[in-house]
């Protein structure tokens, strides 16, 4: 009679699916030699399962929590409202400067903006016809600001997404 191999006995105990699992069970039922081998393996498995647990102190979790560093909010400032407004303001100035032809023109732009901020003719864009460059710059500014605000609001998630795409567990 051909006895079961060590591999077959181990896989049987591991619960790994073998195509001839039924054959193994029926062989074990009628073979004392293989049954004894299986008992020996069961003893080994039981001891491996019964190994002393590595004990950490009861206060281990407290110690770890206390030692955790403050989370580095590397890009948190990008999400702050003031940063978004500041960025928008810088974008506006850059745009105006780009379209502006001279310092005098820039002065007119700021005068106009001052009037707008004070509430005068705030939404009447037709009044800006005397400053076509300003009209262009406002459109540019609006688009740029929306894009920037959306980007910065999602900056951390976007950065994490790309980090995750690269080797994430190569620590």
């Amino acid at each position, binding site marked *: 009679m051909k006895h079961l191999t060590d591999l077959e006995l181990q896989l049987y105990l591991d619960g790994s699916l073998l195509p001839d699992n039924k054959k193994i069970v029926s062989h074990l039922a009628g073979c004392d030699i293989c049954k004894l081998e299986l008992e020996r393996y069961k003893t080994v498995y039981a001891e491996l399962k019964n190994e002393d647990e590595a004990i950490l102190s009861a206060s281990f979790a407290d110690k770890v929590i206390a030692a955790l560093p403050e989370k580095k909010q590397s890009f948190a400032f990008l999400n702050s409202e003031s940063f978004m407004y500041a960025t928008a303001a810088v974008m506006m100035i850059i745009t105006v400067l780009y379209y502006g032809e001279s310092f005098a023109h820039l002065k007119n732009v700021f005068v106009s903006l001052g009037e707008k901020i004070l509430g005068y003719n705030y939404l009447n864009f037709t009044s800006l016809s005397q400053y076509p460059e300003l009209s262009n710059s406002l459109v540019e500014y609006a688009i740029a600001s929306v894009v920037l605000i959306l980007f910065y609001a999602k900056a951390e998630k976007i950065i994490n997404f790309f980090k995750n795409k690269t080797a*994430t567990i190569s620590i």
Partner: protein
Amino acid sequence: MNVEYLTEKEKRLVETILSGDKNAFRQIISDYQKLVSHIVNKMISNSSVHEDLCQEVFIKVYKNLSGFGSNSKLSTWIGKISYNHCLNYIEKKKMPAWSDLGDGTLSIDSVSGDFKTPLELTELSDISERLREQINNLPGKFRLILTMYHLDELKYGEIAKIMKLPEGTVKSYLFRARKLLKENLLTRYNREDLCA
């Protein structure tokens, strides 16, 4: 095929910790401290540094959690960090080579340990004690694989990822180590002892 490695609960837990809730990290510690301490215990013989090393591992896990890509199970990722951290420690402290398995062969002689007098053997007559002694005399890599498989219930593939070994090698080491322990048992005990 896109495999989901994290449960919804784990995803939420990771998000909570990433949002700055340090206390939520207790759950990670509670879930994985056994795995981490098993790896550290099997790799580092100096038990006085075990807890410190486990702490360092968890701090590393916390610091790198934002980079955890969900492309493996959390247990595999944390196991890998633990394993690498211990390897770095071994290298830094110039400890005996952890990965040294000699020529890769295992024999009963290689794990029998020191010669025991008849009296000592009587004292070690308990099968469990005897087996424990044999397990402790196995090379570290074999012991770690046995522990991760039987105690931490990791799959072959997870152990392979943690230890950067081919899955076939993990299976082979596991098979050889268990066969050796069984053969050692065979030389000392009869069926009645085992079935008692």
